[in-house]
């Protein structure tokens, strides 16, 4: 306080000194979640936007990953089975039969992959890959702009609420925390939905373009655990990035804004 020699009665009981002027995490999260629920309609659009982008991202990556895996395993499997078969011819006819069946599977997989054009021209394949990257970038940027815009709308709607919080003593930091947590929520939920959709799309894509029988259980699991966490993290980071500017706008609002009658 400016000069403590005065016998200020208002400022006297500063006792505890600098207390928090913010909310505990539990209540902050409760507030964010309530706000998302309150604007479910609008946030639905954001959810769908994030989900679509993440699904696209996820299915692209996973699909490529699965095909690469198939290519590698079909090749090496064929070779190893061939060796095994040669050995088995000498020992056991039954084992020979089994090895031959697996060899046929591998040859079949290679044939399917070749028919789908995966062994053909590597240059056009690369070009296609580049195009995919551009598409992903573009959709990412579009999504970013969309989320920023929607969150800005939400900030404008909440001018009075934010101003009131500041009248009640909230510091800028609290407002920042409020909006950041909100965006993490939105990002997590949106990308989780997107990642799951993307995963299903990947399986469908592999199944349609190639053959469902080629997808082994272990490979499906592996794809899931490789792709979903990555996609969720990427989607959440994207959402939080999009929320930075609206959060800044919200944090800079003044307590006087609580007095506005018209919005």
């Amino acid at each position, binding site marked *: *306080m*400016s000069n403590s020699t*005065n016998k*200020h*009665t*208002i*400022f006297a009981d*500063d006792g*505890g000194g*600098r*207390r*928090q*002027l*913010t*909310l*505990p995490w539990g*209540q902050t999260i409760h*507030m964010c979640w*309530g*706000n998302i*629920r*309150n604007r479910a309609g609008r946030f639905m659009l954001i959810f769908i936007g994030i989900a679509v982008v993440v699904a696209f991202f996820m299915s692209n990556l996973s699909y490529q990953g699965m095909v690469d895996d198939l290519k590698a395993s079909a090749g090496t499997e064929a070779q190893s089975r061939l060796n095994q078969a040669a050995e088995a011819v000498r020992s056991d006819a039954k084992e020979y039969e089994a090895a031959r069946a697996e060899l046929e599977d591998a040859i079949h997989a290679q044939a399917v992959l070749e028919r789908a054009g995966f062994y053909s021209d590597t240059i056009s394949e690369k070009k296609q890959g580049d195009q995919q990257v551009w598409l992903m970038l573009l959709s990412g940027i579009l999504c970013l702009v969309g989320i920023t815009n929607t969150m800005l709308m939400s900030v404008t709607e909440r001018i*009075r*609420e934010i*101003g*009131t*919080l*500041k*009248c*009640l*003593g*909230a*510091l800028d930091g609290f407002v920042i925390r409020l909006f950041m947590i909100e965006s993490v929520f939105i990002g997590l939920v949106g990308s989780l939905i997107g990642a799951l959709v993307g995963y299903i799309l990947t399986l469908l894509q592999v199944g349609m373009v190639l053959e469902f029988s080629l997808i082994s259980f272990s490979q499906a699991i592996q794809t899931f655990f490789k792709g979903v966490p990555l996609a969720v993290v990427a989607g959440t980071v994207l959402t939080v990035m999009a929320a930075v500017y609206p959060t800044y706008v919200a944090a800079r609002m*003044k*307590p*006087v804004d*609580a*007095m506005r*009658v018209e919005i």
Partner: protein
Amino acid sequence: MSNNNRREIVRTQDVRKVYRMGSEEVHALQGITVTIYAGEYISIMGPSGSGKSTFFNMVGGLDKPTSGEVYIDEVDIAQLGIFELAWLRCRKIGYIFQTFNLIPVMNALENVSLPMVFAGVGADEARDKAAALLTKVGLGHRLNHRPPEMSGGQQQRIAIARAMANDPAIILADEPTGNLDLKTGHEIIDLLTELKEERGVTIVTATHDMKMLAASDRVIWVTDGKISRIQKREELDIKVGSISGEEA
């Protein structure tokens, strides 16, 4: 005004406020000097655009004057840092708004607890006190309802309970009855008066509704950003009487 030893709680010294909008200047306040004493019920009256809200924002530490000083309990609020200002708003001033301004996603209990949690009061203590305050304003049976489920009058009662949460020295209410019908408006004013009598809190309200003046200890009339006159309650009673007389 039980133990009123005329302690100054708010003092403004030649407060001026100029809003610049492009090349145009609006002189919203043109030198306001006034002293408000602890435990008073003050009404600020004036036509629309006279600068009531602007004056309010200065007294409430929500905005800074272009020139002049505002002292709250003899502390020049221009000298306060960001944290001290927030602390002042949190602990020492209770705000009541025309538009109620409750947090829509929180129920009545959470809304009233909010300023206490900001002030560092423990969760249980805050809940208990919030429940007591809500009972006091007559909403003890609706603790878990959220603002959108309540009438304007009920919302304003929650807002009053919230304003009282940290036992502020001053309650600032800018047109607290502006969005309410006459009867509900009177109930709100009665509630404020009761709190003043009971807890000795200083109440400053702005209004342009003559009927809301009866409770005031003093009325400060503002025209074009200047104080045109200050009336005490004794002088006022005749006036209010004659006004309601004219209407009847």
